[in-house]
């Protein structure tokens, strides 16, 4: 069976063009241009919009050797074309229909000369592309303004530009049976752990995807644990972040068609780092990073803490605060948990609506949502003012996290902890915290423990975990470490 397929797939000199037409189903964007070189007739095939054959055509047209009549057999003309005429750098010879079709569909121009059993594929890709722009997510005050685009090649080049190192390795894969999406894996040979690289390659090869339209399909396939609220693959649309990751020995995965590049292995603490930390002064960077961990705690625990304390542990509240809270809660018809749930869900709806709406309307929605609904709910006596403060604080802290996917996991976990706090008070919260800690500690990202540098503890990594030490400090420590 396999053998006959290979046979039928091979380029047949007589029927190549009709085979090709059949394979692509006469799609109108595939252009077949008839050419004649001396006495040999041939075809130039390309996909409109993907490829730009103008340079190839000009070269053929202006090359005297193709018109002087000296060479009139197909194979010598073919060689002449291949070695002399074509000026493009990237050029491939293919002998099977499927391989030719794949190249054709990724922007190659195919030249077929009658009578030959192979075709010349020239890379003339010229897809209309978005310019390199400032990324919409993870924006910084100080730092490069470049963001990845949808073009794989540009993206790789953007990182290459920052890491001019011969040890930088790039391996390409075509993933997705239907989409044949170009994917590239990038790492530094001398920094990356070879075991991790091998593991990633194994996982990529094992992958059996139908289509890859965004890097998330790959992320879902290579992550260690499917059922975890925490992201174990980092993504960014900032070349400087990816370059820094590669320099640290991580592996970047580029997917054609999306500006979001993946970075593995991803550690818990990595989601609290922003490239801004390194672009600003060290002391400020450290403080801001500590603030983010604090925001993580606030965002995760504030509503549940409020529920637990006001419904179970009133004795913990300072008397004057309790009196003020009691005054506010007077006449509120719902228990604190339901009250919190109403506000949190309202906020989630507003947030979701804000993202989907056009930017100009989105702002007014958020104003209507936060001010009008919040204010009105308090005045109508549905919710207490303290609850509005708690929910807004939670939401704002959530936005302070630089990684969106980590922020999402906190948003989800928040509700679970709230439910536990509402049924068991602080006891329930402690149970939730213990379970969370256990889960985080057993989580892995490509075989690397997720909590690395906390658990397992690594003293050296502390230079850039909770705080960021400045370069001179790091160098001093390095000298000390290497000296000892």
């Amino acid at each position, binding site marked *: 069976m396999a053998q006959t397929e290979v046979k039928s797939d091979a380029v047949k000199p007589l029927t190549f063009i009709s085979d090709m037409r059949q394979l692509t189903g006469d799609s109108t964007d595939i252009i077949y241009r008839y050419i004649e070189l001396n006495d040999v007739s041939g075809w130039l095939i390309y996909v409109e919009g993907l490829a730009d054959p103008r340079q190839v055509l000009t070269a053929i047209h202006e090359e005297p050797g193709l018109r002087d009549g000296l060479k009139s057999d197909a194979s010598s003309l073919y060689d002449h074309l291949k070695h002399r005429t074509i000026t493009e750098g990237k050029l491939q010879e293919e002998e099977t229909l499927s391989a030719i079709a794949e190249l054709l569909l990724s922007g190659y121009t195919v030249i077929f000369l009658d009578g030959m059993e192979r075709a010349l594929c020239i890379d003339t890709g010229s897809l209309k592309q978005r310019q390199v722009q400032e990324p919409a997510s993870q924006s910084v005050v100080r730092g490069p303004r470049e963001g990845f685009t949808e073009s794989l090649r540009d993206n790789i080049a953007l990182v290459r530009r920052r890491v001019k190192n011969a040890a930088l390795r790039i391996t390409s894969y075509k993933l997705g049976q239907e989409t044949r999406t170009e994917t590239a894996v990038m790492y530094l040979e001398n920094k990356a752990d070879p075991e991790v690289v091998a593991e990633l390659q194994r996982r990529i090869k094992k992958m059996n995807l139908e289509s890859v339209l965004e890097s998330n399909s790959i992320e879902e396939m290579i992550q260690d644990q499917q059922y975890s609220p925490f992201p174990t693959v980092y993504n960014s649309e900032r070349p400087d972040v990816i370059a820094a990751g590669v320099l640290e020995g991580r592996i970047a995965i580029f997917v054609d068609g999306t500006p979001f590049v993946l970075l593995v292995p991803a550690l818990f603490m990595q989601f609290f780092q922003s490239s801004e930390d390194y672009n600003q002064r060290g002391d400020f960077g450290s403080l801001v990073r500590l603030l983010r961990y604090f925001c993580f705690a606030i965002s995760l625990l504030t509503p549940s803490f409020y529920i637990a304390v006001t*419904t179970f542990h009133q004795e913990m509240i300072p008397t004057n605060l309790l009196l003020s809270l*009691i005054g506010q809660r007077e006449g509120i018809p719902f228990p604190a948990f339901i009250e919190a749930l109403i506000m949190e869900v309202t906020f989630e709806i507003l947030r979701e609506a804000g993202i989907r709406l056009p930017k100009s309307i989105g702002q007014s929605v958020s104003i209507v949502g936060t001010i009008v609904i919040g204010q009105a709910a308090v005045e109508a006596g549905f919710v207490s003012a303290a609850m509005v403060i708690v929910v807004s604080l939670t939401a704002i802290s959530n936005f302070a996290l630089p990684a969106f996917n980590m922020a999402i996991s906190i948003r989800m976990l928040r509700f679970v902890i709230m439910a536990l706090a509402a049924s068991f008070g602080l006891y329930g919260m402690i149970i939730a915290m213990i379970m969370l800690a256990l889960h985080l500690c057993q989580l892995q990202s490509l075989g690397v423990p997720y909590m690395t540098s906390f658990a397992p503890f690594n003293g050296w990594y502390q230079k850039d975990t909770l705080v960021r030490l400045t370069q001179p400090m790091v160098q001093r420590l390095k000298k000390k470490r290497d000296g000892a």
Partner: protein
Amino acid sequence: MIQKITSILLILSLLILPGCWSRKELNELAVIVALGVDKYDDGYMVTAQVINPTEIGLQRGSIGATPVIVYSAPGETIPDALQRILSQAPRQLYLSHLRVLVFGEELAREGLSDVLDYISRNQELRTDFYLLVANGSQASDVLKVLTPFEHIPANSLYSSILVSNKQWAATGRITLQQFVTELGREGANPVLSGVKIIGDKKVGRSIENLHKTEPDALLRHAGMAVFKKDKLVGWVDELMSKSVNYILNEVNTTVGHVRCPDPDDGIIGIRIVRASSDIKARLDKNGKPEFDVVYFIDADLEAVQCTIDLSKEESFRKIEQVIRKTMQSTTETSVQQIQQKFGSDVFGFGEALHRQHPKVWRKYRHQWGDVFPHVKVTIDAKVSLRRVGSIIQPLRREMKDP
């Protein structure tokens, strides 16, 4: 698969079904901020000052009612009485936020240990509220007076104890914890601050009391109640209270006045900015215990109403000497009066002896009550004047000089 789903459902129902058993919403609580205990027949009359939530918030629902509601009920024991209060109040009583506990004078004279047993045993109560004795009245009357400024009377009492203890030194800031420890200690007796109603206590109960610049009824601190074991034996006045606090090392800042070095010239107002004391127990030649108390005092000049020349250093030395003498004489009189009148060692001299001469203490521990009134106490003070204020020479002096 069905098994999995069932087990998840079971776990989820675990969350909902047995949970929440100790749940209480804030608006289901009657927060008691002050508790008063009086004698009533053979049992107690318990008075509870409960927050009226609609009146303390800044929002809706306020009908101009009083910020607190006072419930009273009698009972054989305190929980008994609280149970009866529950039948009057529409909400669950909540004791954790008690700020002050007031005892009626009558009850205090009969002994507080039975009351304190319940108070210390109850796990809902914190131990950081202040204890007070109603001077010459029932505790229930004290709790019924509405106070201006701090609208919750219990808070008013609480913060005025804090402030006056810090600034004035004539009140005692004694929490349950301290009082019970003091009771259990050998060779020391507790004191409690007293509180007195001045004015018309009937008017004090209504909101009218707050509608005037000069309220008809006010609560005032009134000296200190001296206890012997758990029984009140008498009251000491402001000056003596101060002396007690000096020896107990409880003075932060206070004000006072002394006569000028030239006694006919006038008086000088001073502010004590730092004060500490040290009790030394020693044995005289007969082996009897004697006590030396040394004060270390930093003072500022506040008001100079005489013609002393403050540009000379010796004037300061003179004033320091006067302060020292005054402190000595007032404290000595106070100690003697307490020794003779009450025979109650509120200063903790026995405790000092216990610490410094444990072997001697063993001889006296069972008869300290009899020995204390006759022990000799000497007072000394090391006074340093620190600041004279913004001007140097007294204005009165400048009036005299042409």
